[in-house]
């Protein structure tokens, strides 16, 4: 524990800027993953335990495409498209077979896929840590804001993730697909009775969630080290985020993600060895005070 360092940081503008931007980045990338998780749960009432592996897959795809084409934008696009496609196959041929059975079967199918994907990554990309390095486009001198150092890429990440969140919000609230999705979350049999193919809606939601996770993986690739276990740690964080924000609530996921991001970045100064513990502590407190999460519906 190092409370003196934390107070020093909180009173210095440069440290505040640096830590807040890094917290926002952690939070916004986490949001992209958690939003898909919470969306899938909200509509299908299924918990996609492989969602972290989607993120991992996105990061590795971006690594390969960036290496082949030297275009970071192509890499991120490929990550989103590739993982979206994978999510479609996963949903159609595996997950959809266990929608009706108990949660244990769904858990087992996801568990199997986590094992398989982790091993596949080790076989294809090797077991050692991989690093993509900063994309050539962003190899520029960092900005100085109020004395704090902010790499250009960080600014780009924050802006892109904010735009993505806005797009997601527009899709959910302003498009026909979004309306159907929201309706299916409340009453799937009524939606089905109105002549809408709910199976298609479920696939669509899975693909959307998968693309968001793939995007997050691709966007994170330059600033994270890539390893076969990276999916599971972000999965746990996404769980914490969705539980804090309320399962099924996308706005809640945004709130929870930013909270977790800031807890992680400022916590690493004050309690370097207990950062994970802080997140669980925050979750436990919120669960005790409001079991349905900050923005979750009661019951």
């Amino acid at each position, binding site marked *: 524990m190092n409370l003196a360092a934390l107070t020093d940081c909180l009173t210095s503008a440069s440290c505040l800027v640096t830590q807040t931007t890094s917290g926002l980045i952690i939070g916004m990338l986490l949001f992209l993953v958690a939003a898909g998780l919470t969306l899938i749960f909200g509509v299908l009432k299924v918990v996609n335990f492989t969602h972290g592996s989607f993120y991992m897959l996105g990061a590795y795809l971006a690594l390969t495409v960036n290496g082949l084409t030297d275009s970071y934008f192509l890499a991120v696009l490929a990550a989103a498209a590739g993982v979206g496609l994978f999510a479609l196959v996963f949903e159609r041929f595996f997950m959809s077979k266990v929608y009706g*059975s108990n949660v244990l079967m769904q858990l087992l*199918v996801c568990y199997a896929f986590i094992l*398989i994907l982790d091993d596949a990554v080790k076989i294809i990309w090797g077991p050692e840590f991989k690093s993509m390095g900063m994309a050539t486009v962003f190899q520029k001198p960092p900005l100085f804001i109020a004395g704090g150092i902010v790499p250009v890429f960080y600014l780009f990440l924050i802006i892109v993730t904010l735009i993505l969140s806005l797009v997601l919000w527009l899709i959910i609230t302003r498009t026909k697909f979004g309306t159907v999705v929201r309706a299916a979350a409340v009453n799937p049999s009524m939606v089905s009775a109105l002549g809408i193919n709910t199976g298609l809606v479920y696939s669509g939601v899975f693909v959307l969630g998968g693309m968001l996770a793939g995007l997050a993986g691709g966007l994170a690739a330059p600033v994270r080290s890539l390893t076969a276990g990276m999916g599971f740690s972000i999965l746990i964080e996404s769980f914490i985020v969705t539980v804090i924000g309320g399962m099924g609530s996308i706005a809640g996921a945004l709130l929870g993600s930013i909270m977790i991001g800031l807890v992680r970045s400022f916590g690493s100064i004050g309690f370097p060895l207990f950062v*994970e513990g802080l997140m669980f502590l925050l979750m436990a407190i919120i*669960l005790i005070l409001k079991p349905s999460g900050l923005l979750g519906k009661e019951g």
Partner: protein
Amino acid sequence: MMATRPNLVRDVAIAAVALIILLLLPYVWPSKMVNDLIIRVSAFALFATSLNLLVGYTGMVSFGHGMFFGFGAYAFGLSMQRLGVSIPMAFLITVVSSALLGLVVGAISIRLKDIYFSFITLAFQMLLYSTVIAWVPLTGGDQGLMGGIPRPPFLGIDLSIEAHRYAFAVTIMVIGLLILRQIVESPFGYTLRMIRDNSERATFLGINVFRAKLTAFVIAGVFGAIGGMVMALFVSGAYPEFVNWTMSGEGIFMIMLGGLSTFVGPAAGALILSLLNDVITRGTEHHGLFLGAVILLFALGLRKGVTDFVADWFRLRREASSRSGS
């Protein structure tokens, strides 16, 4: 109470016969490989059966039960290494401390229902896992508890001798399963089944559902920790994998594989999965790939545990014979 339990005698008799067979086995079939397998299966059988007390009997899908397995291994190993106590004393410390852990984690987690409960138990397990990894001076971090666990003799039992270790592990397992069986068949066990099937009805009947679930959680935690202790004795150490989430995943797979509607299902699943893991480890480097494929085949193909098939077969045969008799 005893009058309603004529099965107690039967259970004790079955346990005694099973124990005698297991104890005689090394003389009939002297093989270190078989011995080692049975010790490991003993540890996993306790782990899986205790998990089934939650999943199968109470309907609480804990995805963090590995936390207790790992905690038991570390608590036992650390008591032996750091405190220098006798094995029975370390056993007692493990039981009491895992009960306390179960009480704290359970009191928070049980407030949540269904999948939220699964999440939070998993989250608690990962908290323990990251603590084990980060607290290097105490736990040895990702290297695990090194240097071996001392095994001083007690009551004429010397666990550094392999035959003693084997006898100790199977005895603990059989006694543990016998106790769990009594819990499951007791009025409390039937209370848990009622909570699983209709917790509102249980509440209307004046049952304190929260307290019953918490009791089940603590009991399951203690027996899971005893499983971890047997494992720590066997490998003479404790490793972070025992606390990792894969442990919980394997526990779930064990009870599904063996069948969660029979009492011995999870133990059978522990045996099958251990055999399977041995075969996969010997045959290939890509353990996850093959185990994952087997799990998929099971979840999408078989969909029922092995003992469920056996139970179905007996039921069908009984029905067939009663039809032909009438």
